[in-house]
């Protein structure tokens, strides 16, 4: 019930801090698990491949919103006392690892078969073959898609609002509840998201263009 002043903006920016932090946690957690998923998904063991594709199907096939709910309530049911931020971090890690795992699987498979064969012919073992030969090339191939997903993840943190986590969108909701200026507040919130996501998207599509050119 008041104007939007310095305090309100500051409050929204505090939400921004959490948005960025959540995205980073999700990205790092998702990155670590994602590599594992990608490696399992491209392994030669059919059962492991099946299990990992099930994992991917599960987390790509359900809304992030539901994943947040289920983890938020489900973890508590297991008797583990976690606050909202931990539950949300777990949910984002699961979600991100499925998507990044799938992106990276694709890029591992996009590394020409000849590279793996050359590594085999030199007698390199799995670890060295992956670490020295395949993954460096795969990561480069995957850069545009990876950055694209990071943007999705940042936007996805807005859903954490629904389990009451005070990130950017939730901060906006709270301020809009106090000031009764939802349009203005959400306009500001939208612009803040845009200011974070747009430069990233730009870097991503720049890389994509450069790679398309190199491939020609």
């Amino acid at each position: 019930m008041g104007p939007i002043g310095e305090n309100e903006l500051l409050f929204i920016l505090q939400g921004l801090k959490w948005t960025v932090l959540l995205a980073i946690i999700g990205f790092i957690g998702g990155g670590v698990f994602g590599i594992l998923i990608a490696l399992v998904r491209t392994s030669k063991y059919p059962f492991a491949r099946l299990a990992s594709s099930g994992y991917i199907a599960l987390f790509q096939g359900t809304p992030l919103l539901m994943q947040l709910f289920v983890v938020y309530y489900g973890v508590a049911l297991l008797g583990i006392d976690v606050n909202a931020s931990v539950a949300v971090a777990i949910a984002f890690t699961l979600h991100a690892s499925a998507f990044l795992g799938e992106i990276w699987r694709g890029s591992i498979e996009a590394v020409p078969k000849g590279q793996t064969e050359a590594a085999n012919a030199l007698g390199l073992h799995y670890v060295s073959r992956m670490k020295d030969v395949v993954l460096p090339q795969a990561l480069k191939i995957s850069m545009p898609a990876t950055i694209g997903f990071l943007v999705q993840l940042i936007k996805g943190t807005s859903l954490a609002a629904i389990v009451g986590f005070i990130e950017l969108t939730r901060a906006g909701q709270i301020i809009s509840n106090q000031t009764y200026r939802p349009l203005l507040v959400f306009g500001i919130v939208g612009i803040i998201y845009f200011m974070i996501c747009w430069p990233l998207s730009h870097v991503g599509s720049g890389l994509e263009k450069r790679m398309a050119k190199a491939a020609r």
Partner: protein
Amino acid sequence: MGYTFDFGAVFDRAPELLWGSLGSLGLAFAGMLLALVIGILGVAARTSKIAWVRSPVIAFVEVVRNTPFLVQIFFIYFALPLMGIRLNPTVTAIIALGINGGAYAIEIIRGGVESISKGQIEAGFALGLHKADVFRLIVLKPALRAIYPSLTSQFVMLTLTTSVCTSIAAYELTSAAQRIESDTFRSFEVYFTVTAIYLVISSLMMGIFALISRSYFNYPTR
């Protein structure tokens, strides 16, 4: 801890869940159709040589892809009435989904269009076909085929995004879930069940897309 699961209270409300699911499916299909139309028309404009046709599309794509869907749907629902355009929640949801999916579709389909070799287009011109015919008859189908997998996953994501439409009171699965939850307080059971339903819906979507692909893109390539 001593929590006892009780899915009975949730299954008692099965009809509501069913209607909610149908609501979600309806929103998803209508949203997708609109997204596809926006995507195809958008690509035609996006690849135009005329700057003032191209740049608004670029701006549209950038804004939509870099802001959360929640903020977008909120704007359409609450801000457009201030300009005299009042849309009910269902229509709002469809438009929001269409716009969001459309922005992604433009970029995806553009990738497909650009993957079509210049020779194909020149062959069309050399036969005397006009630009619109070349786009419609020669470029579009192979372009869609080339990007069909990414389009599929984008549309599955769109289906899942319908869950966010609950925030403007559109009738779909998540709002049904929230009603049931607020009546039964069986939060975990409700969301667990609904998550499973979403999984079924998205698998169904992928199945449908695979079927379409098999009948529409059934020509062989090397």
